[in-house]
């Protein structure tokens, strides 16, 4: 067995996977990767199941060192500079760390979460079928807490698989799509319009539990207390102060504030990757359109193995990117809108 040692890592970094489903009726938080597509892409690059456990790395940098053998890994999600001893490592590609080598990841440039998948996946003891960290409930494996320097993973020795990159669909920007409800009737038309027509920013106090939004105050028709009912990833609840909170993966399973709308499944990861201070808007879609997008998103996840390419062709890809820039597309790592991924058009 080789080891992958966390030599340094910032806050908001933890082991995450597809989430802990099936016990929400007992109050068990789902958790799981904030950007499920990026998790699936990183895992696919190293031959893992799409929702296997991987390292979710928050906005700050991290370094990982291979010990007692080579370790094959892949990175996807929020773009950031990455290198092994000065040799650049591309996002959305796999790379093998030789015994003793260190992979250095810089700060996220746009977005928040980058996923480091390890060939053979992270091993641990699942609880309710998941290794995902839920620090509040003390769940997660091999470490039931955020990662810290010195933590390590026992991993399979690297295979001789040639390195790969993955071609994700052209990134889309545009409004975050929502389906109104379940309690949109707790708001009058003027306040629903205010919610849909305003520009919002993700507050710096946001975390895996919820993204607090900065913008106009949304007023309720009948006050802000409703009888607690169930929540989902992407539920947008409006507490007494009128500042909406989008519930994310570490949400409580129930809540007592009216929920004006719900972010569609295909856009939850895109919202998760909207960094603090970035302005965005919402757009209401019909449930039929949202379910269409959800099915396309599922299809995109299923298609990931077909999107693998040999790393040898990566230079062509860089040329294509450069052409796109020349042609006027803003393909800049500094612009969150240009790397965010969504279902194919």
């Amino acid at each position, binding site marked *: 067995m080789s080891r992958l040692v966390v030599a340094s890592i910032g806050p908001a970094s933890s082991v995450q996977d597809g989430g802990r489903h099936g016990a929400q009726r*007992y109050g068990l*938080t789902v958790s799981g990767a904030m950007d499920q597509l990026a998790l699936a892409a990183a895992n696919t690059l190293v031959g893992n199941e799409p929702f296997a456990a991987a390292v979710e790395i928050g906005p700050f940098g991290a370094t990982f060192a291979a010990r007692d053998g080579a370790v094959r890994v892949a990175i996807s999600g929020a773009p950031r500079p990455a290198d092994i001893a000065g040799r650049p490592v591309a996002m959305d590609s796999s790379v093998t760390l030789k015994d003793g080598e260190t992979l250095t990841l810089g700060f996220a440039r746009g977005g928040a979460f980058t996923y480091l998948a390890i060939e053979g996946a992270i091993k641990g003891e699942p*609880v309710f079928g998941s290794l995902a960290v839920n620090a509040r409930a003390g769940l997660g494996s091999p470490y039931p807490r955020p990662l810290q320097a010195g933590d390590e993973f026992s991993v399979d020795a690297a295979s001789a698989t040639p390195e790969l990159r993955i071609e994700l669909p052209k990134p889309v920007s545009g409004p975050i799509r929502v389906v109104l*409800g*379940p309690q949109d009737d707790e708001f009058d038309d003027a306040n629903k319009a205010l919610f849909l027509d305003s520009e919002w920013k993700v507050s710096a106090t946001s975390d895996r539990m919820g993204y607090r939004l900065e913008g106009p105050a949304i007023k309720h028709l009948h006050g802000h207390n409703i*009888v607690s009912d169930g*929540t989902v990833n992407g*539920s947008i609840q409006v507490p007494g102060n009128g500042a909406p909170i989008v519930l994310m993966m570490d949400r409580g399973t129930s809540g007592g504030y009216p929920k004006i709308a719900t972010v569609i*499944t295909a856009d939850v990861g895109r919202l998760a990757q909207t960094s603090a201070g970035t302005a965005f808007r919402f757009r209401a879609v019909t449930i039929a359109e949202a379910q269409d997008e959800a099915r396309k998103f599922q299809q995109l996840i299923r298609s990931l193995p077909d999107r693998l390419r040999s790393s040898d062709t990566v230079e062509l890809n860089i040329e294509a990117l450069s052409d796109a820039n020349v042609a006027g597309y803003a393909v800049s790592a500094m612009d969150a809108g240009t790397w965010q991924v969504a279902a194919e058009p």
Partner: protein
Amino acid sequence: MAAKLPPPRLLPSGDSAVTVEFRRTIDDAANERVLALDKALAASPIAGISETIPTYRSLLVHYDPGKIGFEALGEKILAIACRPLPPASKTRRWRIPVAYGGEHGIDLEDVAKALNTTPDDIVARHVGGDYRVAMIGFTPGWSYLSGLDKSLHMSRRQSPRLLTPAGTISIGGIQAGIQCLAAPSGWHLLGRTPVRTYQLHRNPTFLTEPGDRVTFFAIDHKTFEEQDRAAEAGEIIAERVDP
């Protein structure tokens, strides 16, 4: 043919869940319909449903839109929900020990003062209640109870506490609660129970189910310490009374 019941409202919660709402308020009859629908869906599953979450007045149904659409699922749910359904279960009862007041129930004296009575009287009214687990949510094992004595209804604290102890027994508004893990809370803390409603690696991991009946009885703080150690070692402690 039995009379049809008024249909619940189907409220979309995004593209992969629907809230089946029977009432907007807390109501035991609505909660019974929630639990009966939950049981009916477990007994004859509709393809595409992945998970159901009963709450006071609604059932949240998670489903896979790749397998079933909102309209088709809604029709199937309504067909079941409008039939008179058998009650969810023969109701079992948990008798839960509570160490009231002092360090374990730091709000007991203030609650008594606010209601112009003595701490002993508050304990008597709390112990005298016949409660029902209406839902479990927020954090693992947090059991929301209906059945709080009307004389104990009082609004929640102005500012919630950022951390309240594991096992806290509290009241808030018209509800009573059994809290398992340490968590933030704006409720009034009356005491603590050694009972873990959720404990990993214990069988059962989760003690309470929506629909269960609950009564409390007072224990002294020394008994609490002993039972807390036993509970930590995996004992259930709560007394189960089957019908």
